[in-house]
């Protein structure tokens, strides 16, 4: 108790001095172009350090409150600068509010919708826990300690179809962290997922093992920068991330690792999303699409959108995407998460199409996300009964519009992806490609064409 008292007093003393330091930073005008920069950077760093101390529930409360205050501050500034009175601004705001209210009303006015929303909430929570608690589920030692990888993979697959996917992602993360004492100090590490114990990894585990690998790299590296860091420092950290991925991923699976950077940045460092996206374009243009796909995937799991029906992430993706490439990839990433998390209850997807089908039908990215999720799912769990059930599902034929949307956006593309695209991508070891938005039919045709050309040349 004495130590706790001392720590509490030290903390209060540090906070008092922090206040005076920030006052001095503001008065000093160290940066004439942006006088608040130094103080804002200090606030950011301490806020991040505080967040790291939160448990899940308090973190969720923080994120929800933070997202709300950011929106309100934007509105206040837009009102003060009269931007909020522009007709386009007013119409966008009213349409957002209208759409949201309609969605909320839909969930809480029908017993069936409420049941599906509850089921979706349970799915989200289950996935969140599977990834977070994979170490204890697989009896892995404390962070950074070595373990038997093949035994852990066996245990992950013993969890059965669906949990295995998320457990393998967590396992990839934990396995990469056993090398952290080396790469964390800047030493060049090679072959984490190609050599040593990983050489014997079954092919089916590779996509999510790579997603976990990227998660571990991103988690440790992104803490080194803030939105106020110098551009060269941000580029340096991103370069380190890209080099780590290239040195340690298998050919054709890099995309799965790049995508995790977007997921982690949006989830834990939301203020840095646009900065990292922009700088990534300078460091590794090929990784940009994957990054935005991961950002989209994160929206599904953000606490503010965690409870289905209260707030929808779809308008947020449209509002927050800084450019078309980001928007397409974010939409595909969000569709990816929606499809795979709820794959065991296709009725949830049908209900989603009933209300938001028209909105997602505006872009080919939604179907692409669903196809990618199913390809990844069937690759991780060959012969997955849930995916088979999802593809065989027949929506209520009385609702012709929804049935048509299901067939066009989910059913037909899903079957095509699982039965035709997946075998080609697996054969060419290009499964990392499904972690970004692209025309999969074109990619498959190109890969097939290359094979035919090679045969002709031979």
């Amino acid at each position, binding site marked *: *108790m*004495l*130590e*706790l*008292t*001392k*720590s*509490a*007093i*030290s*903390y209060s*003393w*540090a*906070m008092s*001095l*922090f206040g*005076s*330091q920030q006052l*001095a930073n503001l008065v000093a005008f160290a940066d004439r172009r942006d006088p*608040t920069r130094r*103080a*804002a950077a*200090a*606030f*950011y*760093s*301490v*806020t*991040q*350090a*505080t*967040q*790291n*101390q*939160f*448990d899940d529930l*308090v973190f969720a*409360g*923080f994120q929800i*409150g*933070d997202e709300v*205050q*950011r929106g309100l*501050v*934007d509105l206040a*500034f837009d009102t003060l600068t009269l931007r909020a009175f522009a007709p386009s601004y007013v119409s966008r705001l009213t349409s957002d509010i209208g759409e949201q209210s309609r969605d909320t009303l839909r969930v809480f006015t029908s017993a069936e919708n409420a049941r599906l929303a509850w089921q979706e909430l349970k799915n989200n929570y289950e996935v969140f826990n599977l990834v977070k608690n994979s170490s204890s589920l697989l009896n892995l030692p404390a962070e950074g300690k070595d373990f038997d990888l093949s035994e852990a993979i066996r245990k992950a697959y013993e969890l059965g179809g669906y949990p295995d996917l998320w457990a393998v992602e967590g396992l990839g993360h934990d396995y990469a962290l056993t090398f952290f004492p080396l790469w964390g100090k800047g030493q060049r590490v090679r072959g984490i997922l190609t050599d040593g114990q990983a050489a014997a990894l079954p092919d089916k585990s590779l996509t999510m093992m790579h997603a976990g690998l990227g998660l571990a790299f991103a988690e440790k590296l992104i803490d080194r920068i803030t*939105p106020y860091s110098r551009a060269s420092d941000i580029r340096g950290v991103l370069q380190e991330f890209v080099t780590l991925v290239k040195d340690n991923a298998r050919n054709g699976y890099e995309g799965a690792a790049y995508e995790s950077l977007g997921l982690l940045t949006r989830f834990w460092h939301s*203020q840095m999303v646009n900065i990292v996206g922009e700088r990534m374009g300078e460091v590794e243009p090929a990784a940009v699409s994957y990054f935005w796909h991961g950002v989209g995937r994160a929206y599904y799991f953000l606490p503010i959108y965690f409870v289905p029906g209260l707030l929808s992430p779809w308008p947020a993706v449209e509002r927050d995407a800084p450019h078309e490439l980001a928007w397409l990839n974010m939409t595909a990433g969000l569709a990816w998460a929606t499809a795979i998390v709820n794959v065991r209850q296709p009725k949830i997807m049908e209900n989603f199409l009933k209300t938001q089908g028209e909105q997602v039908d505006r872009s080919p990215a939604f179907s692409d996300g669903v196809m990618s999720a199913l390809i990844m799912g069937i690759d991780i769990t060959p012969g997955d009964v849930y995916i088979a059930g999802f593809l065989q599902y027949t929506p209520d034929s009385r609702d012709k519009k929804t049935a048509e949307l299901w067939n066009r956006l989910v059913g037909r593309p899903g079957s095509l992806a699982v039965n035709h695209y997946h075998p080609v991508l697996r054969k060419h070891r290009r499964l990392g490609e499904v972690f970004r938005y692209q025309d999969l039919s074109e990619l498959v045709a190109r890969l097939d064409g290359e094979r035919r050309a090679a045969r002709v040349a031979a």
Partner: protein
Amino acid sequence: MREFTKSIFSFSWAMSLFGVQQTTNLLSPAKAAKAFDSLTEATQGQFTDVLKTTFNAGDKLQRSALDMTLGMFTGEALNPNKWMRMASDAAKQSADAVTKGVQGVTSTVQQAASTTASVADNATTQAERQGWGPMPS
């Protein structure tokens, strides 16, 4: 300014929730102490040298004072050596803080002076370049 306002609100919101978190952490005091220490360390990372020394001086003082208070019950507080050491430590730390403070102010003044001098030099050079015109014979 918009981002700065958001940063301040985020910070205040995080601090409020940290209070809530620490209340639940009280059930395991070691965890609570660790959380305070982590935040204190992160906050110290934002200090200038002068402020760091000031923080260390105050921190050492409060820790010794707490030890002495507890020492009342164990008889440790009656040990004159302990009092002497505490007083000398406090004096040393304070002197350090003052020295660093003075150094800081001096370097700022020197910097300002050199900036002024270079501005003056530039002005002189400009004047030389322009010249004063032909001398009357």
